[in-house]
């Protein structure tokens, strides 16, 4: 085990202010602008779905939100604190409050599933027994407890994505970032993953940002809820829409839509209509 000190938790969650705020954020690589003047905010317990064509800067936006890269201009505030004012140490402390699911899962391939999921707990010096118990709980949540001893190379793409979700939620983060959790998966497995995301949202009411290329996943999240009695996802009665779900649509690095589900579906913007169709 490591001789690490327990990670301090100086970030007090203030639910009255936005959890994520982008203020005129721009970034480019090799002289090419990727995000231009992006403004949006995500309130506590909100699910923000980020849509847009491939290469429009969605994953970059996600990495900016986690402080993994710095913007060229503009300000990003997470839990009310500007990332630019944080030291490297504070950034690492902040990330302990954020769960992130990567596009390709990004599991540590030399660690088994248990150690992957328990990674953050081990960093926080949680006792091995407690860590094991919490890993089992997290794996039960993603219905993958039978894979606890396996290595990532022995898992299918969908199973890896579920382990990645278990790793992201094990420390009960205040914000979860899903970077294309269904990307590259078949429709049935994608539905399983979205089922888990909805379950996580409705069970713990965690604020989350979710990138997806599949519009049906996005609208499933807006129109479905998790039934804790039946342990399954079901449509919201009477064609209802979850008010906590909001959309952000990007195109060529710019925000072309920021609003609620019905506003998106009733938008008259020609590009948006074409994109949604």
């Amino acid at each position: 085990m490591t001789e690490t000190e327990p990670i301090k938790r100086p970030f007090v969650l203030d639910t009255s202010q936005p959890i994520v705020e982008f203020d005129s954020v721009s970034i480019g690589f090799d002289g090419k602008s990727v995000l231009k003047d992006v403004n949006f905010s995500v309130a506590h317990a909100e699910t923000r779905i980020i849509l847009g064509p491939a290469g429009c800067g969605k994953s970059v936006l996600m990495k900016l939100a986690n402080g993994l890269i710095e913007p060229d201009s503009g300000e990003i505030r997470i839990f009310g604190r500007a990332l630019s004012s944080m030291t490297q140490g504070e950034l690492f402390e902040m990330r302990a409050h954020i769960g992130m699911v990567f596009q390709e899962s990004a599991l540590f391939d030399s660690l088994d599933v248990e150690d992957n999921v328990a990674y953050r707990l081990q960093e926080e010096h949680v006792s091995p027994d407690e860590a094991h118990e919490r890993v089992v709980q997290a794996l039960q949540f993603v219905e993958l407890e039978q894979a606890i001893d396996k290595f990532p190379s022995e898992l299918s793409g969908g199973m890896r994505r579920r382990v990645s979700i278990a790793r992201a939620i094990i420390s009960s983060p205040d914000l979860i970032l899903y970077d294309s959790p269904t990307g590259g998966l078949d429709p049935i497995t994608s539905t399983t993953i979205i089922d888990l995301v909805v379950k996580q949202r409705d069970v713990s009411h965690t604020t989350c940002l979710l990138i997806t290329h599949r519009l049906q996943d996005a609208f499933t999240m807006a129109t479905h809820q998790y039934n804790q009695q039946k342990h399954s996802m079901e449509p919201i009665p009477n064609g209802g829409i979850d008010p906590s779900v909001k959309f952000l649509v990007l195109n060529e690095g710019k925000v072309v839509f920021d609003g609620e589900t019905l506003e998106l579906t009733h938008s008259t913007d020609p590009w948006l209509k074409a994109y949604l169709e």
Partner: protein
Amino acid sequence: MRFSPEIFAKNIVAAVQEYSLLCAHAVGDIFSRPRYLADTFIQMDSIGVGSLPIVVLTGFFTGCVLALQAAVSLKEFGAVNMTGRLVALSMIKELGPVLTGLMVSGRNASGMASELGSMKVTEQIDAMRALGTDPIRKLVAPRLVATIFMLFFLTIISDACGIAGGALVAVGMLRLNAGAFFHTGYMSLVRGDIVEGLTKPLFSGFIIATIGCYYGLRTTGGTRGVGRSTTQAVVASSVLIILMDFLVTQLMIGIFGR
């Protein structure tokens, strides 16, 4: 794309800056908490114990060859009894540290570059940062400590094996007296020679770990990029070890006068 000397120069300056920052960050992490002791011991085992066979064999056969070659040349001057002196001085001051550095570089700088490079291209480094862990503290600092520490002792082992190999050839093939071999070897060494021989692995260890990790962490371009980083790490660390050898030798001659 057309070659631009300006962009080329800027890239070199940026790379040197990036490497210097990585080194400063890694050294700073050694002296501050949290420290990853378990990772450091794992790396010591991998780098030190894992490199033992090649270091022992390289040192031993270098000593053998050195004794053979030295005896041929010394015989012309009737000084074949000085073989032990030449083997001991050459092994301890020069060949032991440099060859051990190069062997460990070939084995471990490449290993570090490929391991960290694979982690980089599969987003595991980003995942580590996203999970609240500083990758330099977790991955680079343990490798740096482990390489410097273990290379120091590997060099001593290599020196000993080289002298043993030289003695075996001198006694077994050249029919020299074993006592005379070791005596002339021992008597020829002064404190400066030992200090020189044991200073070089400290620098070599630093070069191997930082170059291996630097090329690993800047890997881009998938599996081909990992291969490129691995090759670059071995080439760069080998060249820097030879350059460092020259500079340290020059410094030691300035300090000890030999």
